[in-house]
């Protein structure tokens, strides 16, 4: 009993004497882009490379494309390659982290190129955590040397995914309407390019007016509108094969055909008996179904990512506002209640947000709101801008913007722009001609 008492009181005494664990809440930090070094890729056995390949300088171009992709995302700060201490070949095998830490890099990308017996290009890349002193990602990719650009985009996506936790959007394409010529004789062609503006190609000759091209989320197919003998037609175009088919002729004004998330239906609006409503068409049976029957103008329909809901704009309340309904046309609910007019709603691939164009006091805004209409945020304001389209990860929007033309009608012109959800990272996407109506594809390497 005596022993017990002694031990009990001694434990009690020593417990009282020890200190509680110090806990500190860290709720602030830097919101700066992550300092990143992209070391030049190196060629392992240059003798195997033909003169033609050597001239291409793929080792430079791949690392440059990766750097540009990461920089454009606004999440990475690329440290000037002139300040790199370590040579690319050593950096790829066993980097000296102190050398990279010295230039304040927190992550580092290295890689090498090899040509195998079948003349295929093998690209290896590694992502290093400079601070932690370890490799955090590595991948080897095979392709023909001509598709080096896609390899660079895929590597960029891997880095983006590893460092942000969400999928990338670099290995994607953008389809748009390329415009040229004077205003009264405007030539409008369908054009396609990589998301960074490279590899521009024209898909139509410009004989017919083309409008509102949209990607199929599941396949490399697009739907667009074109006027043939002044009649609007909806087309389907396979990008890989180039084959094209007419979905149907629609009387009156037809607007913005768009695919359903499973790619089996097209949703659009067209005017019938002087009233514009929302319709869907089953692509296999070609059966058309009317979803709205209101006497007001209902246009710009867009499916939610799960295909259960549709958002569209309508003037049924007296002014143009955004509405949401079930995919069968029931349970129509207005979701926009702010000042001004709202149009071109597009549901995010993530499903959480709806992007829109807002017209208020003569200015055009691109903004986002939650699917219940709450949390409206205007990302960018300009003289004229519209038609937002989401990147496949739902983080960036692409849209087009028109410049004010002079009194004589000169100047003006339209161009493509992108902006991320923070609203701070706004960038122009270079195109060879004027451009409008952009649409973003899904990831090519899914």
């Amino acid at each position: 009993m005596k022993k017990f008492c002694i031990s009990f009181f001694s434990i009690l005494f020593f417990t009282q004497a020890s200190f509680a664990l110090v806990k500190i809440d860290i709720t602030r930090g830097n919101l700066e882009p992550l300092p990143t070094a992209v070391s030049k890729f190196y060629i392992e056995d240059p003798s195997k490379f033909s003169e033609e390949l050597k001239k291409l300088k793929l080792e430079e171009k791949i690392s440059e494309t990766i750097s540009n992709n990461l920089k454009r995302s606004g999440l990475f700060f690329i440290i000037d390659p002139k300040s790199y201490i370590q040579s690319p070949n050593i950096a790829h095998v066993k980097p000296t982290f102190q050398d990279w830490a010295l230039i304040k890099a927190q992550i580092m990308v290295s890689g090498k190129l090899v040509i195998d017996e079948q003349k295929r290009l093998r690209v290896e890349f590694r992502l290093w955590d400079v601070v932690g002193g370890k490799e955090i990602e590595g991948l080897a990719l095979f392709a023909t040397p001509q598709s080096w650009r896609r390899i660079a985009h895929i590597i960029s996506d891997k880095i983006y995914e590893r460092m942000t936790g969400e999928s990338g959007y670099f290995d994607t394409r953008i389809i748009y309407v390329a415009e040229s010529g004077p205003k009264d004789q405007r030539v409008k062609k369908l054009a396609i390019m990589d998301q960074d503006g490279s590899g521009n190609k024209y898909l139509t000759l410009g004989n017919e007016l083309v409008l509102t091209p949209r990607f199929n989320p599941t396949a490399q197919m697009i739907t667009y509108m074109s006027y043939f003998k002044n009649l609007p037609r909806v087309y389907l175009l396979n990008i890989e094969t180039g084959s094209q088919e007419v979905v149907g002729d629609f009387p009156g004004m037809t607007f913005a055909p768009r695919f359903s998330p499973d790619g089996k239906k097209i949703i659009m609006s067209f005017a019938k008996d002087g009233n514009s409503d929302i319709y869907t068409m089953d692509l296999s049976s070609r059966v058309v179904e009317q979803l709205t029957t209101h006497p007001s103008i209902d246009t710009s329909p867009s499916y939610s990512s799960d295909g259960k809901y549709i958002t569209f704009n309508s003037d049924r309340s007296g002014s143009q506002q955004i509405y949401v309904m079930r995919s069968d046309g029931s349970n129509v609910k207005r979701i926009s209640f702010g000042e001004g007019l709202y149009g071109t709603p597009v549901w995010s691939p993530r499903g959480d947000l709806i992007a829109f164009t807002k017209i208020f006091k003569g200015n055009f805004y691109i903004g986002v709101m939650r699917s219940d209409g709450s949390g409206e945020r205007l990302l960018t304001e300009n003289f004229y801008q519209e038609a937002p389209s989401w990147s496949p990860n739902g983080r960036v929007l692409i849209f087009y913007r028109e410049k004010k033309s002079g009194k004589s009608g000169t100047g003006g012109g339209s161009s493509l722009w992108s902006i991320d959800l923070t609203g701070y990272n706004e960038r122009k996407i270079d195109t060879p001609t004027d451009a409008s109506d952009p649409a973003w594809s899904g990831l090519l390497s899914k």
Partner: protein
Amino acid sequence: MYKSVSQSVLFHVLFVLFTVVSLPFVKKEAITAQQLITVDIIQISEKTQLPFAPKAREIIEKIKKEQEERVVTKQAPPKIIPKEKLKAVPLPDQVKNKKKEEKTKQNPEEIKELNRQSSEFEKKELFDPNKIAALIDKSKEETADIQKKQNLELTQNQDSSVNLNKGITLSQEDAIKAQIYKCWNIPLGLPFDQDLLVRIRLKLKQDGSILSSEILDHARMNQPGQGYYKVLAESTLRAVKLCDPLKMPATGYEKWKDLQLNFDAKEMLRG
């Protein structure tokens, strides 16, 4: 025996009587409050006819003259206004308008509500019960201000004293926070509406260098669908390494040798 006792008693009685009669401090007098003397401050000239000193007289006369000059002003002759001849019988609306115009003219007998002075008795009547709420609100504001001040003083006092729950002072805690803030690059793409709290346990050496760092819910990093958590956790580990060694207090090593940092980027990501 009786004789000596009676003598003693007598002697004592006499001694007491003598004391009461002769010694003044034994008899306590009632304390009477001293009467306050009221002093009226008046001009000497009101009560006496004593002549002023020549210089003072000059000054006084000069002031008097100035006052007279100020007060006495010549009144402007009244303006002759010709009588208006009515060209037609005024309509009722015009009559009303005219009445309104007349009101705009100065009327010395009219006392505007704002300018009117009121006696203390009138003030009681003028008291507006509707303004009680405003007064109460004001008093609330005042008390809130006082409380705020008190709280501020309290925290300031605490700041310099040891925080008993933690073992380090609040200013020491702030100093550690400031170091980590500089080292932590928050991954920008993370969602703000998810539970992404990362807790790291640090063991520190006496010089502030990090002996070991461990993410408490490490298993979550490798679970499917926890990509954002993994990204955030890795960023916090980088922050801790970038901050190594931490600048810690020179004393009290036993108190801070084990440290837990709770990284929460929610507020920053929300913007």
